[in-house]
């Protein structure tokens, strides 16, 4: 422990004197989080153009359910998923999967929708033909199509989807009303004529044509009911702050890999590592000391970014960062993400032969992982192929876990999958590094 503590203090001292390194670790993510949040404030409100996956539960299984599904598919902007792993999705599963962020929204068509729509359509049209000025309010009820949204979905995207759905059901309603109208109108006209003319020939009719109340289209048959999928019903609206602060904090955390890799390569090249390996100290102790030092630096860096999200960005006109209700989960995610980043640093520092190699591969791989991980653009707004790749990005694991707590009201249990993935990444990186180190040391360091 004493020797490990010596390494921690030495690393911190070295880092504190590395001005360029500190700039990369603190100023860069701080600047990024401010700039990107402000830049994306409007962009994220207006986006929602790309195809998105919708969980579709048709409990109606009749005309209206089939019609909504077909028309959503025809729009081309949505991919309709009705079964997962060969099993039809039910409402509970849909809610759970949307809550977990696997899908951005779920559409539930209740059982009996078609019958209800037909009954109500007939009432509405009858009311119109009777020139009744009061809205139809008979036994036919207005049916709710429930839409569950992942709370991380941005407003613009949400509006676009709801708008599409409204158009679809308006089309269905209109078709149904016209069907009913075409059924009832001839009978209605004939009845009125008979009433007005008795036995006279039609040519002798001089009175008014029986009227129809033309605003029957306003009497809705279906309604889109938007509901949050989050566990806590108190839904937090996603903002660019909620998206960007954890995103760029993670980006900054992963940049710790560069100074760490650089330090390892330098130790190898200037034979400091050789010297350490000949001293009565275990290599594990040296590495643990190094990792602890970088974890402490990253925690300070993360604290700075949260401070900016909480106190600086609101001064610039953005909403304040909401951090959920489980600080322990936030801490666990943070430490797991930092360990994953140090794992990457160790891997880079061990496998790269020169600092130039590490400084080329490191930043590029981090930027790619960040792009895939939804740091720059939310994962749900990416093309399908990129969404499929994004699940392999450690930054996506970290970001998704933060969104689980910050926006979806999740807790430690909710984020356990992503945390396990981050810790596994750390362990695998260290294991690969150890194997590389072992193989290399057989041939001289």
């Amino acid at each position, binding site marked *: 422990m*004493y020797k490990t503590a010596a390494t921690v203090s*030495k690393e911190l001292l070295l880092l504190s004197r590395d001005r360029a390194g500190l700039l990369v670790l603190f100023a860069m993510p701080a600047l990024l989080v401010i700039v990107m949040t402000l830049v994306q404030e409007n962009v994220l409100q207006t986006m929602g153009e790309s195809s998105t996956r919708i969980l579709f539960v048709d409990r109606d299984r009749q005309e209206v359910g089939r019609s909504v599904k077909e028309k959503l598919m025809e729009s081309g902007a949505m991919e309709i998923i009705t079964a997962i792993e060969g099993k039809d999705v039910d409402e509970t599963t849909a809610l759970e999967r949307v809550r977990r962020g696997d899908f951005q929204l779920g559409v539930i068509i209740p059982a009996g929708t078609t019958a209800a729509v037909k009954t109500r359509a007939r009432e509405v049209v009858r009311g119109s033909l009777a020139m009744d000025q009061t809205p139809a309010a008979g036994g036919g009820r207005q049916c709710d199509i429930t839409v569950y949204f992942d709370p991380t979905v941005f407003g613009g995207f949400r509006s676009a989807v709801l708008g599409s759905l409204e158009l679809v059901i308006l089309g269905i309603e209109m078709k149904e009303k016209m069907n009913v109208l075409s059924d009832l109108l001839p009978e209605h006209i004939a009845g009125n004529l008979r009433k007005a003319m008795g036995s006279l020939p039609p040519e002798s009719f001089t009175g008014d044509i029986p009227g129809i109340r033309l605003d029957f289209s306003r009497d809705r048959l279906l309604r889109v009911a938007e509901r949050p999928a989050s566990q806590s019903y108190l839904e937090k609206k996603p903002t660019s702050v909620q998206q960007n602060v954890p995103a760029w904090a993670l980006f900054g955390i992963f940049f710790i890999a560069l100074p760490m890799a650089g330090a390892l390569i330098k130790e190898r090249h*200037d034979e400091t590592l*050789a010297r350490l390996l*000949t001293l009565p100290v275990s290599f594990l102790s040296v590495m643990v000391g190094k990792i602890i030092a970088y974890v402490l630096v990253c925690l300070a860096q993360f604290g700075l970014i949260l401070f900016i999200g909480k106190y600086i960005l609101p001064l610039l006109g953005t909403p304040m960062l909401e951090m959920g209700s489980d600080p322990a989960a936030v801490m666990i995610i943070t430490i797991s993400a930092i360990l994953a980043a140090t794992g990457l640093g160790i891997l880079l520092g061990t496998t790269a032969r020169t600092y130039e190699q590490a400084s080329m591969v490191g930043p590029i791989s981090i930027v790619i992982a960040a792009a895939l991980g939804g740091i720059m653009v939310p994962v749900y707004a990416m093309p399908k192929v990129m969404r499929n790749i994004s699940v392999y990005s450690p930054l996506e694991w970290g970001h998704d876990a933060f969104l689980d707590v910050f926006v979806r009201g999740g807790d430690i249990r909710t984020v356990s999958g992503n945390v396990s993935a981050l810790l596994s990444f750390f362990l695998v990186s260290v294991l690969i590094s150890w194997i590389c180190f072992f193989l290399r040391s*057989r041939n001289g360091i």
Partner: protein
Amino acid sequence: MQPTDSFNENHTPSGENVLVVRDLIKIYKGATVPALSGLNFTVPAGEIFGLLGPNGAGKTTAISILSTLLRPTRGSVSICGIDALKHPGRVKGVIGLVPQNIALYAGLTARENLRYFGKVCGLKGKILDDRVQACLELAGLENRADQRITAYSGGMKRRANLAVGMLNNPRLLFLDEPTVGIDAQSRNMILEKLALLKNNGTTLIYTTHYMDEAEQLCERIAIMDEGHIVAEGTPGALINRPPGYAGLGDLFLALTGKDLRD
């Protein structure tokens, strides 16, 4: 305070062998020629033993194996009676290494470097403070101890590099070209300090390309070529080998040839 006062004498009985190397062979993966091909030598306590040889002769490979950094393909190494290949951890407590490069943290001061390596060796409290101070004085750096290594001249860096090697008072110290690239004054000072260490009982294994330095400092010398020793003895005995040589350099060229080694 005299620098030597803080250095404990190394109590390996005089004449007892501190280092015994037997049939050491090292073949690097993918190499067609062995880096070491049957290296044999013995170094008694308190001796300065010079390992000379052209580039690629196997000196650094030998030092790496002896200092536990590298595993040999075959052979045995005994340090202070401990099998260094079976128990590298135990050997680390009695050896020191002064690598060819400046193996220091350039962003730290000399004192901070010494304190860090001292702590890693398990030194604490007053013992650590005293040992750090003694090493700084021995290296002639006590007045510049709080400057960062980056601000040091080449000679000062070499002296600081040596100071760290002496920190844990090793019984066997490996020095891999410790005077390369420095001025005559710094070199002279380092040689004086090494002689002082020897007088305190520390055994030194010394590699260098400077023949005059080896002749001045080493009690015995082994000239290596192609992975094994081609001549071994005291500098005087080696020079006087028939037909007689003008100096160690003359003998070296005669034994290893004048062809360039890459």
